[in-house]
């Protein structure tokens, strides 16, 4: 891909990001921040690529740490978001008294 094709993608993606997150209720700020946080765990792909094609000692070390960091970001990020959003699922009401 040429540099300018990539820049075009960058600009469009920036607008998508702005549009998607507009007028969010405050209650959802923290879960959404956490979800976007998990999404930038995409950097693990970079870690996989540099490690997958690495061919010297230091690069092995750097790459492995980068992959591990990325995996923490992804797994932890999505799971914590899921736990936070658990509070929005309606809890069953145990008692059957009148309303």
């Amino acid at each position, binding site marked *: *891909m040429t540099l300018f094709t990539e820049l075009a993608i960058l600009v469009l993606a920036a607008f998508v990001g702005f549009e*998607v997150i507009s007028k969010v209720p*405050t209650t959802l700020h923290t879960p*959404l921040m956490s979800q976007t946080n998990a*999404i930038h*765990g995409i*950097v693990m792909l970079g870690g996989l690529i540099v490690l997958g094609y690495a061919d010297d000692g230091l690069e092995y070390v750097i790459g492995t740490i980068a992959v591990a960091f990325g*995996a923490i970001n*992804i797994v932890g990020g999505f799971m914590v978001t899921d736990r936070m959003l658990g509070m929005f699922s309606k809890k069953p009401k145990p008692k059957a008294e009148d309303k």
Partner: protein
Amino acid sequence: MTLLAVLKPGGDAATALYIVAFSLFIIGLKKGTHPTSAKQGNMVAAAGMAVAVATTLLLDGMGNWGLIIIGLGVGSAVGFVASVRVQMTEMPQMVALYNGVGGGAVALIAWSELRHGISLGGDIPLEELIPTLLAAVIGSVSFWGSNVAFAKLQDLIPTRPLSVPGQQVVNAVLLIGIVAACVNIAVNNGDPSEALFIGILIAAALLGNLVVLPIGGADMPVVISLLNAFTGLSAAAAGFALDNVALIVAGTIVGSSGTILTMEMATAMNRSVANILFAGFGGAPAGGGGGPTEERPHTSIGAQDAAIKLAYADTVVFVPGYGLAVAQAQHAVKEVADQLEKRGVTVGYAIHPVAGRMPGHMNVLLAEADVPYEQLREMEEINPELPRTDVAVVIGANDVTNPAAKNDPDSPIAGMPIIEVSEAGEVIVIKRSLSPGFAGIDNDLFYESNTSMLFDDAKKAAADIAAEIEQL
């Protein structure tokens, strides 16, 4: 050992799968903006991530499988255990930590990419080198800044603002040094100095520490959100360096949506991002000499947020006051209560002896709106229950909820019995402004961390909330 290699890097199949992945991210985020679909949205985004990771693992020429498995295994295990163990109250610092490791990963990738470029010999193309440098700087700032934010929220270091004398000058010098070193590397792209690159990583690390240290604990969520956007941008930069479209799109979306989110959070706290970053406060008003008239940070929300808080609570207590009587809001409040009861929320009304300025006044008003008598609770009866209440809604009441009556012996209302709403999980105060109540004194309740202010006329606000709950 290329056991999985089936996709050509940058080839049609790999790119098509990356497009599927980032489409799922966008759908996931969109669903994440509404409370009923947010949980599902997170799953959709996670599925997108699974597609992206699987695609990358299938790229032709990938090797070092042992190390990849170690990295994936250790990282996944740490992330899993940490997120299962963390307490709900500790979520913000957990997000800070995950954000930090993301930034750290970017900085390391940039370093590895630079070494790779040097080892190939010849000039490193600038369209690869410049994004690599950007990724290194932003990633390193984000890693260290997030770690400081984590340490502050976890009480490992003092949460109060810490600043070094001449702070701004030191930061400026560091920034100039980083830019100069980057220019040097870019100009000498035929033989860039790896030592200088490591120097950049270290200077950026210092900068990350120095920028976040002076910020108080109360502002930390906004800072984490900002660093989150930074990490997204650094991921996009790494995407340019590696020619990877998934990184570019996902990183940029996080960068821009994170920026918007940061600004919305700051607005909800009545602060500006610049104010938070550079003013160096954000805990309690410094020195403790906060006069009652000065502008203090508080959280302000709209009817929709209030509706969400209420609809997903188990128990809600309304604390009506004179403002409700003046606005004739009792019917509208009853409407909110009816909506909540339909959803299975337990509703009660806490009646202060002097609510409405006349003993029994409030009971009458509420009875007129057909509020069942058993829901009207006396102050002495409701106070012990407030710690178990999810949300207390203060409507047009002020002095009768002022914690100063209990905590400040010098207050004009010292010793007055109050409804201890600050004991509840969350407090929503519906009021037209922050102005003092009948007693003419500021109400500390408005500035507590679990209090949200909804500035509106009581009747209109209640009607809006009822309408919002109905739509949930």
